[in-house]
């Protein structure tokens, strides 16, 4: 299972492409011709295919097995989506082509926008944010723009403890002071504490719903009303939209802005860490401040509204967030996915996702502590803690033990409100047989942790690597490969 680095096996004379010979011309490079080698190794095509095929086999993906990473929504990625995104009519068009030549692409953006607005019961959507956190930023910027437009310089954003970690980072990035709101013992926002804190300095409340404890924020409507009454806005982190799509519309709960992770609810592949896509739906109040560009449908066809074409009725827009129009490749995949499910299928999605999570919660609460098990049904994810494990055993041991059982571990140590948290999100694309296998495996690992089985501390044993030393990596960061001779020389 060792695979050498390309720098160790490639050579500067080898190439895996054939380039037609360049015609002879007089160089016009302004005297800046490159004078030193770049030191980029090349591999022939057979060696390249083998290198990456072998590397891929050191990875775990949803295609290989259950991947219950809570809050990350690892669901099946249909290959139809990949196929559609690769149609030359979508994959081989330039973002700056004349609009008359990209009417189909603009239609995709518009159709997807319509679905998202309808599914969320909101007023409009900004399609360009590149990921969930980028969408949060988009929402906060719109809120700040709206407040500025009414001359109301507020300075504080309230974030509950159970919010996603990106929320406070985003608020701070937008120049707001961030204040925490505590959670109730049952794992929801403390309504009273929130109401008490509201005031003329509060720009917005950022709420994750369903929250990171896997619970629906029952009081969201009440919260929204209170925030609005206090002159603020409600931002909803939509990362967990998968739990409610087709059954609940955030617009009905008073939300002003919410990002939608297309790579979660709408199944665009995560790809080992991206690309994501985070469109943001807006209430009527925030819509005028949405970023450029966006697509409008007119009698003459679809129009891309950007700097050149925005005109006066979009004067409130807070500007541009990305160079072009957002993650077109993800829009194509998401629209394909949404059409494949339809209104009936999307409702079934949230029902099955919630059913699967509750099945796991109830099947394991006898061996794992479930801190909010008494708070009612969970939504799409089941939360456990490390309470009850033998001395010296931690959530990390459970995770590594699951690897040896052939599963990807759940999300660990998140949310922070629960000690040694384990957040299991099965999604709707797992069948009962897969869940049952996982339950048996996790039960076994949990029992070993509770009983103090020392062997568990050494897990994983059957992975491409044993436990990796993350401290060493951070203390002496080695971020690029260096020739061993160069390393040796440097050491002398």
């Amino acid at each position, binding site marked *: 299972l060792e695979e050498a680095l390309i720098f160790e096996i490639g050579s*500067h004379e080898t190439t*895996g492409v054939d380039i037609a010979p*360049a015609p002879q*011309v007089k160089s*016009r490079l302004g005297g800046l011709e*490159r004078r030193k080698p*770049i030191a*980029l*190794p*090349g591999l022939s095509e057979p060696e390249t*295919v083998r290198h*990456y095929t072998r590397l891929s086999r*050191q*990875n*775990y993906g949803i295609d290989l097995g259950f*991947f219950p990473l809570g809050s990350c929504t690892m669901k099946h990625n249909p290959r139809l989506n990949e196929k559609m995104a690769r149609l030359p009519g979508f*994959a*081989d*068009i*330039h973002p*700056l082509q004349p609009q008359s*030549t990209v009417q*189909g*692409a603009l239609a995709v953006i518009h159709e997807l926008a319509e679905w998202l607005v309808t599914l969320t019961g909101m007023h409009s959507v900004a399609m360009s944010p590149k*990921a*969930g956190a980028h969408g949060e930023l988009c929402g906060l910027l719109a809120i*700040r723009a709206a407040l500025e437009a009414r001359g109301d310089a507020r300075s504080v954003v309230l974030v509950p403890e159970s919010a996603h970690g*990106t929320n406070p*980072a985003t608020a*701070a990035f937008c120049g707001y002071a961030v204040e925490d709101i505590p959670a109730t013992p049952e794992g929801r926002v403390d309504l009273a504490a929130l109401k008490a804190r509201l005031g003329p300095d509060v720009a917005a409340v950022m709420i994750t719903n369903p929250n990171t404890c896997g*619970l629906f924020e*029952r009081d969201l*409507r009440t919260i929204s009303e209170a925030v609005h009454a206090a002159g603020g806005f409600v931002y909803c982190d939509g990362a967990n939209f998968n739990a409610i799509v087709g059954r609940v519309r955030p617009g009905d709960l008073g939300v002003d802005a919410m990002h939608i992770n297309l790579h979660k609810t709408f199944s665009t592949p*995560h790809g*080992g*860490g*991206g690309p994501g896509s985070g469109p943001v739906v807006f209430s009527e109040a925030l819509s005028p401040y949405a970023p450029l560009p966006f697509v409008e449908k007119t009698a003459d066809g679809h129009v891309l509204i950007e*700097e*050149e074409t925005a005109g006066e009725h979009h004067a409130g827009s807070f*500007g541009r967030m990305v160079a*072009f*129009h957002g993650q*077109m490749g993800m829009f194509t995949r998401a629209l394909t996915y949404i059409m494949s499910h*339809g209104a009936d299928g*999307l409702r*079934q999605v949230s029902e*099955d996702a919630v*059913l699967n999570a509750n099945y796991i919660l109830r099947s394991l609460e006898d061996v794992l502590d479930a801190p909010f098990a008494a708070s009612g*049904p969970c939504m799409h994810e089941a939360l456990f803690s490390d309470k009850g494990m033998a001395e010296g055993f931690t959530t990390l041991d459970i995770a*590594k033990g699951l690897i040896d059982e052939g599963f990807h571990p759940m*999300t660990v140590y998140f949310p922070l409100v629960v000690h040694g948290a384990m957040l299991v999100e099965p999604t709707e694309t797992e069948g*009962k047989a897969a869940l049952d296998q996982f339950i048996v495996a996790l039960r076994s690992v949990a029992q070993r942790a509770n009983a103090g089985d020392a062997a568990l501390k050494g897990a994983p044993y059957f*992975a491409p690597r044993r436990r*990796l*030393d993350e401290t*060493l*990596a951070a203390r002496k960061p080695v*971020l*690029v*490969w260096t020739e061993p001779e160069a390393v040796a020389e440097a050491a002398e």
Partner: protein
Amino acid sequence: MRYLPLTDTDRSAMLNVIGVQSIDDLFMDVPVEAQLATKIDGLPDHASELAVERHMGKLARKNMVAGDVPFFLGAGAYRHHVPASVDHLIQRGEFLTAYTPYQPEIAQGTLQVLFEFQTQVARLFGCDVANASMYDGSTACWEAIGMARRITRRGKALLSSGLHPHYVSVARTMARFTGDQLVYTTPRVDAEPDIQTLIDAIDGDTSCVVVQYPDILGRIGDLSALAAKAHAAGALLIAVVTEPVALGAITPPGDMGADIVVGEGQSIGVGLQFGGPYLGLFACKQKYVRQMPGRLCGETVDAEGKRGFVLTLSTREQHIRREKATSNICTNSGLCALAFSIHMTLLGERGLTDLAALNHARAVQAAEALEAVPGVRLLNSSFFNEFTILLDQDAREVARALADRDILGGVSLGRLFPDAAELSGGLVVAVTETTTEDDIAALCGGLKEVLA
């Protein structure tokens, strides 16, 4: 429903185990008034693969495909040939359907690729280190400005007039909220980039100078003097590369003293895709690594002493530091970085050099042919694979007229700089290895007709 494995038999059995009567009981925490009793109105029901393919295919056919016509668009996104093996490999389920490598023991594939990617990017840019990618070039550019602010503790950034105007827009959007001061004007009609102007503008408040290389009009200038002046003033030089293929032919910014080099990696491995997903490249000098935004992959060893890779320095990141993070970025462009890295591995030094040479040669051929068209003047004294021609009429109209003749002839400066009337006659023309002599002839012919 083809993606949903549960059968009704399964559902009943599971409700039994949970101890509730129906699915509705699991949604009891949703306020009744917010519960939809039935599926959402006004939306179609699920569709077969065949039906979805038909619909998407119909929309796809409404677009003019770059590969089907003479094509000369660039301005931040370039059409290059991507080997078939790249797309095959990124579709391996183990790459495509993996998450961020939070469990490194079963994510060494992704992690080793990121380590190789970081090294490739750092070498290409002439820098010491690189991160594991960002959203795209424009957001990487803004992140670099923010990083310069953190390092220099100054808030004034000088943006070259040759910086892509959309990158400027993104920076302006963000600066409005962070309070950074951005100094920028639209480009002048000049054969050379604005390096001397920037040198003259640097002062003691300057956090950084941001210069694109080659610039939005295709011009190339030596950055050494600019770097020296910036450093003398305690400022950083940030170079932006929107066409990394150029660095197969010209000196990388890092070698000329740039402190941070960012770029758009779309040219290598990713494709046009109507603007996204793209790939932000980010590299810098070793001494600034702990101020670098975004994910980083680092080398370490496992419990048996074997080499392995992990995400590292995450203490800079938002899920640890929350409001004190270096940026709010959570996702990178992992799969695009993989595509970039595979393509770069296939190319290698030799392939990249050959590719760059071919791009430049074809561009020179095109420039020479276009200069011979009456009414066309070449702006640039130097260029790599993109240059600006000046016409006597509004280039927006010309571009549209060419499109009506099934020629995608270039990006008009009027579209990029709608408020700069003096630029309206400019057309940015990009030429790559995918451009044929027939394409060049078609563009010249089309221009003759349109300008006549």
